[in-house]
């Protein structure tokens, strides 16, 4: 039993790594069991997961904000001229 537990036990560092891995790639069956077991005993990593998802959502919306509500529009006339001058056949 002790051996099985050792096999399934994750450190908090490894658990947070799996939490991040999962947002990118499917976990293996073993990793899923390990993570679930770890979280059932660890409040800190449970809180970490919740906060990690929150940060994911914030980053996603922030990085995708192409409406540019929060971006100041910068004028760059020199760049305009440069682009036009560098276009082929012009």
């Amino acid at each position, binding site marked *: 039993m002790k051996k099985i537990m050792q096999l399934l036990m994750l*450190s*908090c*560092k*490894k658990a*947070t*790594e799996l939490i*991040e*891995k999962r947002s*990118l*790639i499917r976990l293996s069956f073993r990793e899923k069991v390990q993570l679930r077991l770890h979280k059932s005993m660890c*409040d*800190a*990593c449970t*809180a*970490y997961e*919740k*906060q*990690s998802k*929150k*940060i994911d959502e*914030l*980053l*996603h*919306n*922030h*990085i*995708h*904000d*192409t409406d*540019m509500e*929060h*971006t*100041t*529009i*910068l*004028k*760059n006339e020199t*760049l*305009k001229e*440069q*682009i*036009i001058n*560098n*276009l*082929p*056949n*012009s």
Partner: protein
Amino acid sequence: MEDIMDISKPDTTVKCWVDLYSDKMYSWAFHKTSSKEIAEDIVQDTFLAAFQSISKFEGKSEPKTWLFAILNNKIAEHFRKQFRNPTVTESQSGSSLFDTLFDANDQWIKEQRPKEWQGEQAHLLDDVAFVKVLQGCMGKLPINWMAAIQLKYLEEKKGELICQELGIAPTNFWQVLHRAKLQLRKCLENHWFKK
């Protein structure tokens, strides 16, 4: 204005697009890369690519949407380059970050254990002060960690595909993301969320 959808005269059309959209595209590229020179290069490249492939623009989408798709590809390309070329110090900052959070057994150091954040706001990104904190924290990340974050969220692609394009093993990518997230989380907690 009629010219903006007319691809039979690429010269006039692209010039018209430059006039209409280049400031917005430049601002977006600058917002993403925080560098004037890089942003200018990227916008320049985007228009060149648009000019060369204008026959593929079928007028099904707005020119602005089409141009921004090319622009975002160029920005992703830039971050792929940054991800691939980390500087020496960055691997060191990884281990020292772990040391500030985890003990010798890789368990959370007592004071660092995450606790639920209290009183969370619903629309945080509408809060200018928060966006400033978020940008500040992102700015403190090592360049290739930041690149990994940008790549993950900029292109809504599966992790496997991002890694394929980067030509790296997935392990490599999520381990960088892991560090980036740990640091970002800590920074946001210190500057915004109260335990």
